[in-house]
């Protein structure tokens, strides 16, 4: 069975979610819970680090769609970082770069959050 897990890092006002493994219809609820927990704690500035994500299907992409509006209503954002070309190509095919800022590195994404303040 495909494995997927997340871990988070509290970097002050900004929280980083690290994705690990295979994100599909089976494992998408794990990421939904991670987002829900952060939102419950009123953490709305979120960077998602894709470095260790091996696979994503549309069920995984849907998780980002499910939370983005609520987060932006609270003056936050989801910024995406450190994607493999394989994962980026799928985001690109579905037009996600129009809706989400995608950065080469986690540091760049965090920097962008800090610039706004």
């Amino acid at each position, binding site marked *: 069975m495909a494995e997927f897990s997340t871990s988070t890092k509290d970097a002050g006002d900004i929280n980083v979610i690290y994705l690990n493994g295979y994100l599909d*219809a*089976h494992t998408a609820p794990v990421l939904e819970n991670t987002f829900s927990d952060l939102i419950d704690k009123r953490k709305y500035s979120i960077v998602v680090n894709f470095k260790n994500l091996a696979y994503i299907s*549309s069920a995984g992409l*849907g*998780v980002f769609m499910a939370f983005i509006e609520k987060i932006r209503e609270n003056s936050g954002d989801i910024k995406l970082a450190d994607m493999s070309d394989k994962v980026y190509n*799928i985001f690109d095919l579905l037009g996600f770069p129009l809706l989400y800022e995608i950065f080469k590195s986690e540091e760049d994404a965090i920097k962008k959050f800090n610039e706004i303040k």
Partner: protein
Amino acid sequence: MRSSNLKTENKKLKEKELSVKSKTNNLSIIRDFICNAATEIGFPSEVIDNIILAVDEACTNIIKHAYKSYPEGEITVKLKYADKKFTIIIIDHGTPFKPETVPDPNLQTYYRQHRIGGLGMYLMKSLMDEVKYVSVPGKYNRVLLSKNLNTSP
């Protein structure tokens, strides 16, 4: 000359079949099955990734929509390779599906309406050479996906 070509192809996959229950934890089994067959045929790795994703999307749609997450439905995946064409046929016995009722996604609309489904069908059409649906109500639904060995990813 022709016969030696045929011989090489015969050594490769001709037909294979996998049946699993309609549970999302079986998606990884289906992906591995597709990965092994596509690798055996000799597709480049980026094409293999695309085929795996397209089949995952088709099966995810079957689990969520045809079987409405009922976990005891049957999904059968049949593989064929002939004339440099890899064909994947996926059969279920759930609710019939009318592909013509699914519009291409508009991401801005999805964003506004909180809609998170419907992207899978668009991916399948984008990633494969051919996507065909046949439903025989009360009997079966069949999705056919194909990819030619020599086309671009």
